[in-house]
């Protein structure tokens, strides 16, 4: 296995025979700013590389966004060491370890199906309402899952990554968001 894409794969965009070996690339430190619209309750988040997290209130279409929190965070992409493919994860604003057991939620049903063989992590995008129709890409979710599984020890629980659009309801699908909140509460 050289990791090089075949000619056939090269002629089909997005298709490769490479058995990817992912590494993090373009790792940047900053703040994950979470905002809420106090009219409709929508939440939005974005990554900021400003020295201080922006806290301005502003109007955007029907929303009036108000600062809710700003936590230290990193933004990264994934690059295959073998074929050089780079996967953009700029829409990924967080990962949540799912504890959802709701049979009405696709994530909860998947958890029941997998049992103790795997841990489900939800890849969170910055838009709770998914109004724009965009979420973390399918390719990004797949690459993240491969990345977190590629170095695990034999017998370790498998990691299953799912997009946040799979949740029935952002407020009902329970999980533990990996965040650096509480650093001042040590």
């Amino acid at each position, binding site marked *: 296995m050289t990791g090089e894409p075949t000619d056939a794969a090269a002629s089909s965009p997005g298709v490769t025979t490479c058995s990817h070996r992912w590494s*993090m690339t373009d*790792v940047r*430190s900053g703040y994950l700013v979470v905002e809420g619209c106090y009219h409709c309750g929508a939440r939005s988040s974005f990554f900021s590389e400003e020295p201080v997290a922006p806290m301005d209130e502003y109007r955007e279409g029907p929303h009036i966004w108000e600062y809710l929190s700003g936590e*230290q*965070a*990193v933004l*990264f992409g994934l690059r295959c060491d073998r074929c050089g493919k780079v996967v953009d994860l700029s829409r990924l604003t967080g*990962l*949540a*370890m799912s504890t959802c057991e709701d049979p009405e939620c696709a994530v909860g049903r998947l958890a029941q199906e997998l049992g*103790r063989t795997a*841990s489900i*992590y939800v890849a969170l995008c910055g838009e709770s309402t998914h109004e724009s129709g965009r979420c973390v890409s399918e390719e990004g979710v797949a690459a993240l899952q491969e990345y*977190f599984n590629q*170095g*695990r*020890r034999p017998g*370790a*629980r498998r*990691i299953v990554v799912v997009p946040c659009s799979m949740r029935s309801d952002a407020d009902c699908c329970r999980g*533990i*968001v*990996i*965040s*650096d*909140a*509480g*650093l001042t509460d*040590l």
Partner: protein
Amino acid sequence: MSEIVEKTGLRPLGAWEDGDIAGVYCSDMASDIITGAPAGCLLLTLQTHKSLIASANVVDAAMVVFAHDKRPADDVRELADRVHIPLFCTTDDTWSYAVRLFDLGMR
């Protein structure tokens, strides 16, 4: 793992099974852990919240050691138990415990 537990006087905070340790990672930041901790590592930290366990699980940390005698809440211990990550604590501060691991030959 059992050699480290015995020689550094770690106190277990729940059930644990012996296993191999592949290095050490010291961090109190979840974002740093998921971008830097290697699989099979001993994770040395002060953080005791659930986010720490979620981070340790996704990078496949072999064990977590809380410095300065920090003790996680029961729900954090239950979460760690559910994903089979053994938890320990030491009365040492992070630096002192890291030096002890270094003296044991851990790199």
